[in-house]
């Protein structure tokens, strides 16, 4: 594989992930100011998703720097992080559903 392409793409990934993390931070702070529980939860979730994305881009960026075996292990870590991202999103959905069902009255979890 061409390491220079990987490096450039990972730098772009890092930039996008950084912007995403910044937005997530704004959401978290705004939700704290407003006192909206649901959006505070969303802010935390987005922040963690952003952390996963940053980790992935860092791993891709470090292709040329580290040996192949360690690099593949890092891929494993990144994929676990993405699984955690999916889990966090599902958890956020579950919590939203539960809270709104309580607020609106009726409905099961």
């Amino acid at each position, binding site marked *: 594989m061409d390491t220079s392409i990987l490096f450039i793409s990972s730098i772009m990934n890092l930039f996008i992930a950084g912007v995403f993390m910044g937005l997530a931070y704004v959401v978290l702070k705004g939700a704290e100011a407003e006192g909206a529980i649901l959006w505070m939860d969303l802010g935390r979730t987005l922040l963690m998703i952003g952390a996963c994305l940053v980790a992935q881009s860092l791993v891709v960026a470090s292709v040329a720097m580290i040996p192949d075996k360690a690099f593949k292990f890092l891929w494993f870590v990144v994929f676990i992080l993405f699984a955690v991202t999916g889990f966090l*999103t599902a958890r956020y959905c579950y919590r939203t559903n539960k809270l709104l069902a309580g607020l609106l009255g009726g409905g099961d979890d």
Partner: protein
Amino acid sequence: MPDQQGLDFLIGISAFASAIFLFAASGYSMFIRMRIPKGKFSVIFPYLTMGMFLLGFMMISYSVIFLSGLGVITLLTTALFFMGTFIMMVGAYKVTLEFGELAPPPPRPMPKTKKRKKAPASKKKVVSPSSKKRVKKGTKKGKKGTKKAKKKTKKVVRKEEEE
């Protein structure tokens, strides 16, 4: 090298597992989007659904790459990563736009008191048909009827006198 192949297999399987997690999250967020009423809190869900779906697709492509031993194809995975992240970023931005609407509007300063102009009274009174029916005997309508009767009797008396 069997060790390398084993590692590739492990990575491919973990990528596939994370893809399943991401697809599950995407489906769940879509389900929630359909379940809860449209409002401020449901803004993020369509974006979250799409973003998670694209990231799941990226993971599938990674698992195919590692399991088949093709080597990392950056173009497809990077494009999917960009799209997924960008869509979720748009969702987060939309949430930040909704914050102003959550807070109650600031109280307006009380305006100086001015004398209100009276509204011009309408010349004709609008009488509803139901109220017409409720008119009792002895009201103006009834009186009008008696005046006519009196005029008739006066005319009759005059004619008799002339004769």
